[in-house]
C-alpha cells in the first residue's frame, strides 16, 4: 500500500509546507512524490500483494493503471509550472488538492471492494470539484458548479447501485460478488440487475458516456487548461479502472448491463464525434473528442477481459500521452484561458514550428493514423470488441473514426497553411511545459512503432483473469 501512502504523504506535506515554501518548491516536492510512488509500484510488479483483507490489491492490473495515472499527473504538474500563474492558480493548495485527487484515483485502481472504490471515487471527485473552481473567474465557477451538481448526481446513483448490489449478493467484495453471481444463484436477480445498471449510470457520469456527458464540454472549456488536462486524462483513467474492476471482474456475469452498455457506446460515439465536428473553439473540440474516445475505450470493456483488459490499458496509456500532449501545447501557446479558436491556429507552423509539429503528431495519434500509438490503441479496442462478437458495434465505431479524422484534420492542417496576420500566441519559452510535450510526442511515436514495449507487459491473459481478486 506504499504507493498510495506516498502520494497521501505528499499531499499532506504540500498542505502543511504550503505555509512556508513558495509554490514552485511545493510543485517540485509533489513531482518527487509522484516519482517515488511510481518507483514503489515498479518494485511491487508481479508481487500480487493484498492488504486489509483484500480491500486493496496491488496486482499487475492495478499497478499498470496506477503508473498511467502517475504519468498523467506528472504531466499536469509539469504544465502547471509555467501556466499556473497566468491561470491564477499559483498557490500551493492546487498541488495539495491535485495530490489528494491522485490518492483517490489510486485507491480506485487498487480497490478490492465496492466501498474502497467509492471512497477513492469520492476523494477524487471532491478534489476535482475544488480544482475546477479554484480559479477566481465566473467561467471556472460555472464550470465547476455544473461538474459538482452532475457529479453529485452520479455519485448518488452509484451509491444507490452499490446498496442494491449489496442487497442482492450480501457482500461488497469483488470476489464475493463474483462468486455470488457466478452461477447467478442470488436471492434476487432483478435487484442485482437494477443495481448493476445504476452502477453503470453512475460510472457513465464519471467517464462521460453519453447521455451523461453534458458537463464535459462546459467543464473542459470553462476550467483552466491545466485542469482540463488533469480531468480529461487522470480522472478518466481512474474511472475506467473502476469500471474495469466492477464490470470486467466482479459483475461480468450479471445479465443486461452489456446490452445497455452497447446502447450507451453507440450514443457516445455518435454524439461525441458529431458534436466535435461543429466546434470552433479548440478546447471544446478536445472536450468532445474526449467524449468520443470514451466510446472507443468502452468498447474494450465489453470484450472478454483477457483481450479487452490489455487493450484498455494500452489505450488508456496512449490516450493519456496524446491528450496531455495536446493540452500542454495549448497551455503553452494560448494567451487567455479560453484557449484557441480554430482560426487562431492558422499558420501556427510558421510561428512555432516545433509546437505545431508536436500538436500535429498528437492530433494524428488521436485520429488514429499510424505510425502513432493512437492507431494501435484504436486497433486493439476494435479487435477486442470484434472478437467478442460485437461486429455491428465495431462498424459503427469505425464510421465514428471517419468523422473524428475530419475534425482532428482541420486544426492540424490549418496550422500548416500560410497566414499573414500577426501572431496570436504567447511568445515566451516554457521549458517544463515543453518537457511535457516532448514526453507526450516521444511516447506516442515510440509506442506506435514498438507497441510491444507497453503492450507486452500487460498482454499476459493470466493477469486479467484475477480482475476481481483471488
Amino acid at each position, binding site marked *: 500500500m506504499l504507493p498510495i501512502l506516498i502520494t497521501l504523504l505528499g499531499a499532506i506535506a504540500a498542505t502543511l509546507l504550503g505555509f512556508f515554501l513558495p509554490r514552485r518548491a511545493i510543485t517540485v516536492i509533489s513531482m518527487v512524490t509522484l516519482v517515488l510512488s511510481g518507483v514503489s509500484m515498479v518494485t511491487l510488479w508481479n508481487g500480487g500483494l493484498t492488504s486489509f483483507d483484500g480491500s486493496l490489491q496491488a496486482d499487475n492490473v492495478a499497478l499498470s493503471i496506477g503508473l498511467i495515472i502517475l504519468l498523467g499527473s506528472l504531466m499536469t504538474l509539469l504544465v502547471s509550472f509555467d501556466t499556473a500563474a497566468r491561470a491564477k492558480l499559483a498557490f500551493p493548495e492546487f498541488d495539495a488538492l491535485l495530490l489528494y485527487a491522485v490518492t483517490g484515483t489510486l485507491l480506485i485502481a487498487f480497490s478490492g471492494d465496492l466501498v474502497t472504490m467509492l471512497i477513492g471515487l469520492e476523494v477524487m471527485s471532491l478534489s476535482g470539484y475544488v480544482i475546477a473552481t479554484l480559479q477566481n473567474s465566473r467561467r471556472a465557477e460555472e464550470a465547476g458548479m455544473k461538474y459538482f451538481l452532475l457529479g453529485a448526481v452520479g455519485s448518488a446513483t452509484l451509491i444507490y447501485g452499490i446498496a442494491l448490489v449489496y442487497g442482492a449478493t450480501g457482500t461488497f467484495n469483488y470476489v464475493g460478488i463474483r462468486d455470488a453471481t457466478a452461477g447467478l444463484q442470488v436471492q434476487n436477480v432483478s435487484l442485482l440487475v437494477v443495481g448493476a445498471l445504476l452502477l453503470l449510470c453512475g460510472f457513465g457520469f464519471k467517464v462521460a458516456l453519453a447521455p451523461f456527458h453534458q458537463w464535459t464540454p462546459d467543464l473542459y472549456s470553462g476550467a483552466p487548461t491545466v485542469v482540463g488536462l488533469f480531468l480529461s486524462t487522470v480522472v478518466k483513467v481512474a474511472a475506467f479502472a473502476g469500471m474495469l474492476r466492477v464490470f470486467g471482474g466482479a459483475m461480468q456475469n450479471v445479465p443486461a448491463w452489456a446490452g445497455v452498455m452497447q446502447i450507451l457506446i453507440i450514443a457516445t460515439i455518435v454524439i461525441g464525434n458529431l458534436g466535435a465536428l461543429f466546434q470552433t473553439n479548440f478546447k471544446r473540440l478536445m472536450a468532445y473528442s474526449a467524449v468520443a474516445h470514451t466510446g472507443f475505450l468502452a468498447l474494450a470493456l465489453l470484450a472478454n477481459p483477457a483481450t479487452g483488459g490489455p487493450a484498455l490499458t494500452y489505450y488508456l496509456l496512449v490516450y493519456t500521452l496524446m491528450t496531455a500532449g495536446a493540452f500542454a501545447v495549448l497551455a503553452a501557446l494560448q494567451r487567455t484561458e479560453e484557449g484557441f479558436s480554430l482560426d487562431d491556429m492558422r499558420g501556427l507552423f510558421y510561428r512555432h514550428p516545433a509546437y505545431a509539429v508536436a500538436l500535429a503528431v498528437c492530433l494524428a495519434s488521436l485520429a488514429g493514423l499510424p505510425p502513432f500509438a493512437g492507431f494501435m490503441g484504436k486497433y486493439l479496442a*476494435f479487435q477486442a470488441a470484434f472478437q467478442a462478437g460485437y461486429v455491428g458495434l465495431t462498424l459503427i465505431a469505425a464510421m465514428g473514426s471517419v468523422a473524428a479524422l475530419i475534425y482532428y484534420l482541420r486544426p492540424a492542417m490549418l496550422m500548416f497553411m500560410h497566414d499573414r496576420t500577426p501572431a496570436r500566441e504567447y511568445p515566451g519559452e516554457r521549458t517544463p511545459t515543453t518537457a511535457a510535450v516532448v514526453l507526450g510526442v516521444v511516447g506516442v511515436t515510440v509506442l506506435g512503432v514498438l507497441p510491444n514495449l507497453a503492450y507486452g507487459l500487460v498482454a499476459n491473459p493470466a493477469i486479467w483473469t484475477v480482475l476481481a481478486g483471488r
Partner: protein
Amino acid sequence: MIHFFIFLPVLASLLIFLVPVRWREEFAGAAAGLTLAGGLWSWSVGGLSYYSVPWIPALGVTYSVQMDGVSLLLGIVTAFMTLIAIIYAGKRIPNPGTMLSLILMMETGLLGIYAARDLVLFYVFFEDALIPALLMLAIYGKANRMAALVKFAAYTLFGSLLMLISIIGLKYYGGSPTFALVDLQAHPVTGTLQTWLFLGFLAAMAVKLPLFPMHAWLPDFHAQNHDSGVADVMGTLYKVGAYGLFRFAVVLFPDAMLEFRPILMGLAAFTALYAAWIAFSQTDWKRLLAYAGLSHMGFVGLGIFSMNETAMIGALFLLAFQNIYTGALFLAAGMLQERVGSLSTKVGGIMTQAGALSGMTMTLWFASIGVPGLVGFVGEFSILLGAYQVSPWLAFIAGLTTIAAAAYGLTAFQTTYWQVRPAGAVLAHDLKDLDWLILGAPIAVSIFFGVYSGPALALVQPVVRTWMAGLGGGL
C-alpha cells in the same frame, strides 16, 4: 538490404532538417538516387527474399517484407519518379526543404506498401502514405484546398477502416496464428463470410483505385495541389488500390472475387469510359490529367477483376508505367504553368515558342493514349486481350476508351500547343538544363519498355503465374 531500400528515404526525410539549407536539394537527391540504385541492384540479383520477424507477438502481428517481381517493378518505378520529382522540386519550389522531406517520407510509405507481406503492416504503410500527401496539400495547395483535403481524407479513411475490420475478421474467423500473408493463405475463410470480408477490403481499394462511385476525391485532390505538379507525381504513385487487390484480394478472397467479377469488371469499364468522357470537357490541365489517370485506373481495374492471367499481367504493367508518363505529364503541366502562368487548356501557340516542351509533352501523350511503340500500348493491349476472353462486351466498351483518350488528349494538346499564340501574350521560353532530364528520362523509359518490354514483363509474369496457380487454374 530490403530494410535499407524501404527506410532510407524516411531516414533522409528526417535528417534533411539537420542539413544546411543550401545543401538540402543535393542531400535529398542523393538519398533518392541511392534508393533507386538500391532498387536496381535488387533487380540485378533477382529480387529481395522474404524476411519476417514478430512485431507484436501477443497479437500475431509480424514485420514481414519481401520484394518479388511485381513489388520490385512498382518499387523501382516509384524510386525513379521520386528522383525526378525531387530534381524538379529543388529547381522549382523556393526553399524546398519541407517539400523534399514530404516526398521522401511518402516514398517510404509507398515502398512499404509494395513490400509488406503482413496485413497489419500493409495497413500501417497504407495510412502512412496518407500523412505526407495531406501535408503537401495543406502546405502547398491552392485556395480551396481545405474542402479537397477533407474530401480526400474522409473517402480514404472510410475505406481504410472498413478494411481494418476485414483484416481483424480475416484472422479471427480463419483462425490464423498471425497476420502474415502466408499464414492467412493457409487458413482461408470461405463462404458468405469471405464475401463480407471481401467487401470491407474492397471498400479501401476501390477508394484508392479509384473505382466509379468512390472517385470524387481525385480531381479535387489534383486540382488543388501545387502548380508544379510535384505533389501530383506522388499522387499518381499513390494509386495502390490495384496493387492491394492483386496482392491480397486475389489470394485471400478468390471465391468472392469470382462471384463479383461481372459487377466489378462492369464498374471498372464504366469508370474508364466515364472518366474519359468527363476529361473531354475539362479546361484545366490538372483536372484533365486527373480524369485521364482515373480512366487508366479503370483499365487497370478491368485487368485485375477479370482474374485472367494475361489481363492481370497487363494491368500490373500498366499500373507501373502509367505512373511514369502520367507523372511526367503532371510535371509538364507544371512547366507550362511556370511559363504562361496558367493551367488552362486554351492557351494556344506554345509550339512556336517552346518547341521542345511541346514535342516532349506530345510524346508523353502518345504514351498515355496507347500508341504502339510506347509503353502505354503494351499494358492496354494485354488487358483488352485478357478481358476479351472473359467478357467480350465489357472489353469492347473499355476499348472505346482508347479512342476517347485520343480525343480528349489530342484536343487539349491542340488548343494549348498549336493554334495561334494570342497577341501580347508572354513569351514562353523553352526547356532549360535540368528540364531536359526531367521530361527526357521518363520518355526514354517509355520508349525503351514500349519497344522492348521483355525485362519488365519477366518481372511480373512469374509472380502472376504463382498467384493464379493457387486458384485452381480453371479461370
